[in-house]
């Protein structure tokens, strides 16, 4: 066990955990003020559900030995994680008995847990303002189990790391996906597209202005995402070494280039470089460099970032052309950005990078390019089909979409019984007509019964 590596992976795990609240802010600021809480709760809810499942059987499914012909790891092998506990005690410096490379298995558990969490949370952006919260919670459990845990096994389970026999994309196809361009971003992007199709368009889509209600909140979210993403990418080295440092620099510079790419695209096309564009460019760049960060030089990272910035800025318009309401552009940013980065490795990958091979533009031919394309395509197809089936089944059984009146009223008050802001200088916190407060829960009827009409 190496304490420096462990320190870095624990730090990275905390950083990646922060990304999901960061995402909640990023998404929350983009919706209208009547659904910001619901938007945030989809992320927080995902943390709750996936965190518990991960400990119970998720880690085992992702990193246990192959079962089902390589589809997934054995869910029982590490059930409850008790098998990974145990240290050498005080005298032995609490060195962990179970290691993944040079770090305690438990550190790896934590680091990978937050990957699972954010992948699920990302999907929620595609179905803003219209999903039943209860169904969303059920969806997160099913989707994590049926889609994420298997895909994570394919992409992240290297032979001999936690278990002997790992996933086919990592070990047989040899797609380069350092930190999850396929397992996280293409996966979430494809799932977002499927759910957006299943749930359908928001009432008033393309007619009512659904502009972001709080852009500084979006910027806070973008800042926290960027910060956390260094854990995501450089932490994926699972060590504090030269690779982690290279990855860090690539992650920084690709994001810078992507932000500039998005802003320039907007300036040329719309006449304004916007703050939402800047924040979106940041995320697009981070997405794109995620699979590529250990396989390109800093100049290659600039190229990948800039291309992702421009392409994603264009891709967010596709939904208007094709008519799917991917509300917060999970497809335009995560699916497209994920593909740019994953396939981009086939072009600008370079052998001088710590985990790179020469891509097409570096004279490496198309060998790596097709590996990248096949890996990306396999995850995309698997995720899209399975998500569509899960979403459709939920919609047909317990119902996934809220009714129209509730959607018009806004999910915050209808579903969560809350209002995000009470900034009235005058009414705020003064008694208003009828504002009786019932606090003795024993005598008060349940809130849900009182709701009469909020459809104004």
């Amino acid at each position, binding site marked *: 066990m190496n304490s420096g590596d462990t320190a870095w992976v624990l730090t990275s795990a905390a950083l990646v955990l922060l990304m999901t609240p960061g995402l909640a802010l990023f998404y929350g600021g983009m919706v209208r003020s009547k659904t910001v809480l619901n938007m945030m709760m989809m992320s927080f809810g995902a943390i709750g559900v996936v965190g518990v499942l991960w400990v119970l059987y998720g880690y085992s499914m992702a990193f246990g030995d192959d079962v089902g012909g390589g589809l997934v790891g054995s869910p029982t092998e590490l059930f409850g994680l008790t098998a990974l506990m145990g240290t050498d005690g005080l005298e032995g410096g609490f060195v962990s008995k179970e290691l993944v490379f040079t770090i305690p298995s438990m550190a790896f558990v934590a680091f990978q847990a937050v990957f699972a969490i954010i992948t699920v949370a990302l999907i929620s952006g595609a179905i803003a303002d219209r999903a039943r919260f209860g169904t969303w919670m059920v969806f997160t459990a099913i989707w994590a189990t049926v889609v994420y845990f298997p895909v994570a096994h394919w992409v992240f389970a290297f032979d001999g790391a936690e278990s002997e026999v790992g996933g086919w994309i990592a070990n047989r196809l040899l797609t380069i996906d350092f930190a999850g361009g396929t397992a996280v971003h293409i996966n979430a992007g494809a799932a977002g597209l499927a759910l957006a199709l299943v749930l359908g368009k928001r009432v008033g889509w393309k007619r009512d202005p659904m502009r972001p209600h709080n852009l500084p909140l979006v910027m806070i979210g973008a800042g926290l995402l960027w910060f956390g993403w260094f854990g995501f990418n450089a932490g994926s080295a699972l060590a504090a070494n030269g690779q982690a440092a290279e990855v860090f620099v690539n992650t920084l510079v690709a994001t810078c280039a992507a932000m500039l790419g998005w802003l320039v695209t907007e300036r040329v096309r719309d006449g304004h470089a916007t703050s939402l564009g800047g924040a979106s460019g940041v995320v697009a760049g981070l997405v794109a460099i995620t699979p590529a960060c250990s396989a390109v030089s800093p100049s290659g990272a600039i190229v990948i970032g800039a291309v992702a910035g421009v392409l994603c800025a264009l891709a967010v318009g596709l939904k208007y052309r094709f008519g799917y309401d991917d509300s917060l552009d999970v497809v335009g940013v995560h699916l497209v950005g994920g593909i740019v980065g994953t396939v981009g490795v086939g072009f600008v990958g370079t052998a001088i990078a710590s985990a790179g091979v020469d891509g097409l533009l570096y004279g490496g031919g198309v060998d790596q390019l097709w590996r990248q394309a096949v890996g990306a395509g396999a995850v995309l197809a698997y995720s899209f089909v399975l998500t569509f089936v899960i979403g459709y089944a939920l919609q047909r059984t317990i119902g996934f979409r809220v009714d129209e009146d509730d959607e018009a009223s806004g999910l915050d008050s209808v579903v969560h*019984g*809350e209002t995000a802001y009470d900034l009235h200088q005058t009414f705020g916190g003064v008694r208003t007509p*009828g504002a009786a407060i*019932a*606090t003795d829960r024993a005598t008060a009827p349940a809130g849900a019964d009182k709701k009469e*009409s909020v*459809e104004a």
Partner: protein
Amino acid sequence: MKLITAVIKPHKLEDVRAAVETFGVTGMTVTEASGYGRQKGHTEVYRGAEYDIALIPKVRLEMVIEDDECDDIVGVIVKSAQTGRIGDGKVWVTPVESVVRVRTGDRDADAV
């Protein structure tokens, strides 16, 4: 001149505006308001404490218009703001003695 004040449901604002425009009303002043009336609010719960939110978001419109158009425009507003459900709001008319356009100093009929 008359002043028509209309308190309506917020999502009807654009329908009303479009409707009155066909009657030549090209300007209006809009304020956010909250209404109290037959329509009941909703309940919010914070850490188990329940609050009844009785004030309901409304939009309040003011249009200064000429006397002879008044009845028609009130009718148009009522029609375009109607959903038939409780809380659709009120429209009332008050007399205006004079009106001036600030930019030009034009008065009365010329001012609106």
